[in-house]
């Protein structure tokens, strides 16, 4: 089992007012799965993803990643896992402004021990179809392209798991489809994908969909026929 959560809780203490965001979540994810976490806003799905993605720590419960209890990990060890073993794609892309596409993808490599930064970043950008945009500044490309740069950045350290938090939330449907098809392709290549979304059509790209409400998992369904979109050529790709 790649990810094993046992009775995970998360509470926020706002000057004495305790808010329970997760009320005992247990979940197992196998390597190579494409998992969607669905739920309305405020359901705790993002908090859950942050905990699984090592961005936040649970208040209580056990989290085993690749068999290891992450409670014992130091901040530096968590940083190492975030760098080498997982990748993130955010709703608002979070690219460095006024920085080239290539340098954005190189950024995670600067915190790793890997060498040949240029080469690895170029390869990752080619994998998302942006091999011809290396030296564009992050503010000179379209939203769909930005999200593909973000996927390349998540991919560049060759992680086991990619976390995507509403990756199509800020995109038009065409760009969204392209992004989803890239994620689908990455899953077919063997990478575990964990996707957070409130959109059923987006969630249906996964082969397993869990629904979370008020901090608890209310359903965990197998999706035998995951939606597969064809890569739609982004018309802006041709504008040099």
């Amino acid at each position, binding site marked *: 089992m790649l990810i094993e959560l046992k009775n995970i809780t998360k509470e926020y203490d706002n000057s004495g007012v305790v808010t329970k965001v997760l009320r005992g979540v247990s979940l197992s994810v196998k390597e190579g799965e494409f998992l969607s976490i669905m739920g309305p806003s405020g359901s705790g799905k993002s908090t859950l993803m*942050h905990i699984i*993605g090592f*961005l*936040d720590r649970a208040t209580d419960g056990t989290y085993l990643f690749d068999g290891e209890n992450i409670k014992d990990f130091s*901040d*530096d060890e968590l*940083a*190492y896992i*975030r*760098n*080498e073993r997982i990748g*993130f794609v*955010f709703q*608002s892309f*979070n690219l*460095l402004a*006024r*920085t080239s596409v290539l340098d954005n993808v190189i*950024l*995670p490599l*600067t*915190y*790793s021990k890997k060498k040949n930064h240029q080469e690895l970043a170029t390869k990752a950008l080619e994998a998302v179809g942006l091999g011809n945009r290396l030296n564009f500044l992050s503010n000179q490309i379209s939203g769909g392209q930005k999200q593909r740069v973000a996927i390349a*950045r998540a991919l560049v*350290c060759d992680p086991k798991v990619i976390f995507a938090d509403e990756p199509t939330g800020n995109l038009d449907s065409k760009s969204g489809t392209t992004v989803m098809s890239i994620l689908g392709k990455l899953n077919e290549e063997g990478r575990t994908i964990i996707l957070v979304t409130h959109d059923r059509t987006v969630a249906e790209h996964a082969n397993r969909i869990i629904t979370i409400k008020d901090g608890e998992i209310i359903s965990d369904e197998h999706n035998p026929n995951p939606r597969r979109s064809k890569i739609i050529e982004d018309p802006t790709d041709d504008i040099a």
Partner: protein
Amino acid sequence: MKSYFLQAIRGITHNKSRTFLTTLGIMIGIGTVIMVFSTGEGFKSYINSQIEMFGTNTITIETVVPASTKTRDAGDKADNANMDNNVANRAIPIKTFKNKDIQDIKNVANVKNAYGSAFGQEVVTYKDNSKTTLILGADASRFEIDKGVIEFGRPYTNEENSSLAQVAILGHTLAEDLFGDSDPLGELVRVGNYNFEVIGVYEPRGGLGSFDDEQIFIPITTLQKKILGTDYLGYGIVELIDGDKADSTSLDIQDVLRRNHDIDDPLKDDFSIKTQEQNMETFNVILSATTFLLIAIALISLVVGGVGVMNIMYVVVTERIGEIGLKKALGARNKDILYEFLIEAILLTLLGGIVGIISGSMLSFGVAKLAQNFGFAWKFSVPIYGIILSISISTMIGIVFGVFPAKNASKLNPIEALNKE
């Protein structure tokens, strides 16, 4: 390491006008430090040239009240315990330093030349003009040692000195005061009860030599026998063959004087011997104290500048909170973020320091040019220790004032930082 620098450079080039304003305090502070050092060096070169005007490679012999005598006096009256050396000198004239001492000193190894000198004060009169002025008596060797230039006329000779000739050379200002536009050469001026023939006029010396410009110069024997009625000297100047051996020559001269004055106890020395280097040292102590004071003032500006850098770094951390969150999400460790911000702060202050060094040097160059235009022998130089110190100070300010904002940034929780954007 390289990536820390790249991130830091990206940070400081992001908002250039703010970077400039942030580093302004450091620029001013470092500029001041460089100016203080550079003009200090210039001033030193000027003083050096002034001191050399009285002769290069020289040793000065002054008469002093022996230490043992002073101690005895102090025993009687506690108030006298702190009695200043000069006051003591004036109160008790030392009569032991004679022309014979100078003759004996001339025979010491490494001594090229020497002259003895004494001062008097008299009213000097020419027609209706009169002036109370210092009279400097010296033997003719003075003209070989002293760098003062006689503009008109000639120096007096050793024969004139031995024959108590009543001849005088006027300082430039004194000549103007007494004679105005008319030619003083060959005229008679009255000094006390005697008439002296003006045989020369000095060029103006200016600077430290401006005292000389107002004096009258006559043979030492004439001064002693006819005006002062004494047979002792106030001080002596010894010119050396090799200035590097000044210390050992000083000891030889000390031996001569102790023998001539029958002194067996160093506490009873009634003279003090100072090499030019020792005279420079006295000046250097004063200069160092002034430099220290000015640097202290510049340091205040640097601290204020540092606080400015710290403030801006706090602002920058807040501004880039989302970026910090992102970097942490992508695997940056706390220390990666710490170094990025710390290096950015150091680059900021270092940049200010470098601009400060350049502008401070340019200003000191201006000061040097200005001084040279006014005829001062002022050399322009930026001492290397000033540059090294400035660079170390600006780096240190970057570290000291950058470390708190950088620590703040590094400790941010990644998800809170991401959410704040």
